[in-house]
């Protein structure tokens, strides 16, 4: 449903304009019941060409590997069976969302339904289709990870595939399109100045950086969330709650409460990506000592209390 939030143009025009026609979509298409089973059967037999197979949701393998926790209604066959059969026919396979890519939230805790992703089980290659799977077009499963996915990540992936402009080198080490996975959520985060001076929020609703206390891993999470923003001008950090790394495998099990930074001897665990630990510690203590009053006060307020100092007229 996040896909329907695509804008400029809307999702219908976006796909139309790129020459992409939907064979079937569970929320949009007219066809239902027997009409769909007939379509799927023709795709499975190869009578009808399948350019792109998009799968949302984890693959449920339970109970005991049977896949009967998710039967494709009206067909008497488990969804995993259908996905395997259709993936073998598809020119490209796209996993949409962190459940379909890596198992995601559905595999939280005891993973009651034995959920896995299309080509990963958590961070481990494999999943339903196996590490060596390549679709007809030569690519592994394209992992549009995110919980939710940004609508643009989905539409732009489809636009690039349709244009023949997405190659294996355009995917990162976890199969994610690099056009969004080469960025960190930290990039363009509106709290960056607080981060620079380690001016931290102590509780949700405060304006400071959420890395030190509130579980934010925006400096480690891939995604251009703060560059392109969501639903107009939004992002998790802009709304005052932490990035939980939802584009990554196993984000659903951080090993601590999502909104609390794990610490050892009072020092937060987890470093910004590519940052040497000793340097981070040194810079952090230095910048913390240099925190301007404006940032220190605003960091623990729920709104800007102290505005930036204005310069006087030029002499």
């Amino acid at each position, binding site marked *: *449903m*996040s896909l*329907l*939030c695509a*804008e400029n143009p*809307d999702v*219908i025009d976006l796909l*139309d304009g790129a020459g992409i026609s*939907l064979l*079937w979509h569970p*929320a*949009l*298409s*007219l*066809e*239902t*019941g*027997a*009409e*769909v089973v007939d379509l799927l059967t023709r795709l499975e037999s190869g009578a009808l060409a399948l350019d792109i197979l998009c799968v949302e949701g984890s693959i*449920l393998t*339970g*109970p*005991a590997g049977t896949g009967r*926790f*998710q*039967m*494709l*209604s*009206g*067909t008497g066959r488990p969804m995993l069976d259908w996905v395997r059969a259709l993936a073998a026919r598809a020119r490209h396979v796209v996993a949409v969302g962190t459940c379909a890519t890596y198992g995601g939230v*559905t595999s*939280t*805790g*005891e993973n*009651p*339904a034995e959920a896995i992703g299309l080509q990963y089980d958590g961070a481990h290659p494999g999943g339903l289709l196996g590490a060596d799977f390549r679709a007809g077009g030569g690519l592994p499963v394209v992992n549009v990870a995110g919980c*939710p996915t940004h609508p643009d990540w989905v539409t732009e992936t489809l636009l690039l595939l349709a244009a023949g402009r997405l190659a294996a080198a355009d995917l990162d080490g976890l199969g994610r399109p690099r056009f969004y996975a080469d960025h960190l959520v930290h990039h363009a985060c509106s709290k960056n100045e607080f981060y620079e001076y380690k001016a931290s929020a102590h*509780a*949700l*609703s405060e304006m400071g950086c959420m890395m030190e206390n509130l579980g934010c891993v925006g400096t480690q999470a891939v995604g251009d*969330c703060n560059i392109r923003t*969501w*639903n107009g001008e*939004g*992002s*998790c*950090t802009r*709304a*005052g*709650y*932490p990035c*939980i790394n939802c584009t990554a495998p196993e984000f*659903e099990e951080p090993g601590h*409460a*999502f*909104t*609390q930074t794990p610490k050892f001897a009072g020092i937060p665990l987890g470093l910004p990506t590519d940052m040497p630990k000793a340097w981070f510690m040194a810079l952090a203590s230095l910048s913390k000592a240099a925190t301007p009053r404006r940032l220190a006060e605003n960091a623990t307020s*729920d*709104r800007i209390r102290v505005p930036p100092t204005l310069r006087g007229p030029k002499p």
Partner: protein
Amino acid sequence: MTRLIVGPFNRVEGDLEIRLEIEGGQVRAAYANSPLYRGFERMMTGKDPRDALTITPRICGICSISQSAAAAFALADAARRAPTPEGAKVAALLHAVENAADHLTHFNLFFMPDFTRPAYAGRSWHTRARDRFAAATGAAPRAAVQARASLLHIVGLLGGKWPHTLAIQPGGVTRAPTVRDLARIGASLRAFRRYLETTLFAGPLEEVAALNRPEWDRGDAGLWAEIAADCGLDRLGRGSGRYLSFGAYPLADGPLIARGLWQDGATHPVPLAEITEDLSHSWMIGHTAHPAQGMTVPDPQMQAPAYSWCKSPRLSGRPVEVGALARQVVDGQPLARALADEGSVRARVWGRLIELARTQLLLERLLASIRPEARFMDTVALPRNATGAGLVEAARGALGHWIDIRDGRIASYQIIAPTTWNFGPRDATGTPGPVEAALAGAPVEADEIATGATPVAVQHIVRSFDPCMVCTVH
């Protein structure tokens, strides 16, 4: 007698299979199967209670804020605290925007495209229906998708993104809106009103909100009214006329939409202690229990007579229908009250349209009442041992979360989603759930039986409930 298994049933949210027994050109009995089990309630066990705010919204990509609000209220209840008054208003605003977006999606993308089917060729309205509501490509779905995306900018601004916001907390909301934010939200709301008043209703919302007869002759809603009358949708898919609403958008001085149980032509207090979930026809191990004592243990053998992963919620031992119609009946909207006994396909769709108009008015009043200088969130410390319930109204009806915290961890988490109420299977007495009952008697054409096509009347009835199967089977 002919048996027909219908699926995949699309333009509903999630996975649904319906088994029909057909005799004499009518559905004699219907069995609703939710063929997906994920086990969200079990995933919660042993987690930090705060994690419910992150995990439960991810049950669903369409009712996400409803789940978020229910989790926040359950935690607040466990702590015997309430959000700050202004925080409660922003939470209500976020939630009401999602509910409005869902109603819009249902009408334009899920429900109306069925009237473009060839089965209706020759009807006086068929060409107009095809022009407006062709699935995915018609003018009405396009306009609705654009209006919806713009409306959800409000959630982007206050909640960071839609779906799966973490902005709603037990003590309020994480972002204090500025005066400028409120002005921007006002602009988004005015744009949405313009869409509603030029396209969906093509008339003043105040007139729609005050309707007391199912008559409207303008816009897409006018086309719907014409179709409903021509197709006799007032006689199709009739329900029990017993409706439940938990009450929506709780503020410091009460909910903006009333809580109540409607039966025998009057509203009554909701006997919350008499909510149970019956497991007799679910692939679940255990016995009938109140959700505070409930368990979710799947039966891997999937043994008969069970036929669904969905449990069967009952109120005082009987099924009850939930949704926009139920809410509006309980709240006393005149048209909803007039259609309460009818409880048909027509009544359910009108319930949603009426509510869409009323929600816009509610949003405008709510926005005007927000005081940006106030506090929007208090930090709420959760007790190490406590129980709590969070009862809200999702677009599709009553949603409840029941949490049991022991030693600072979640010992039990039970959820009853709106579609669990509406699409539950039979109970121990053999009484069918609301959609199963509503399907009995639906006409089935001879060519539908011959080709195995999904009977169009069955499609109208099922979609009139706007089921969200992913929430149902959490």
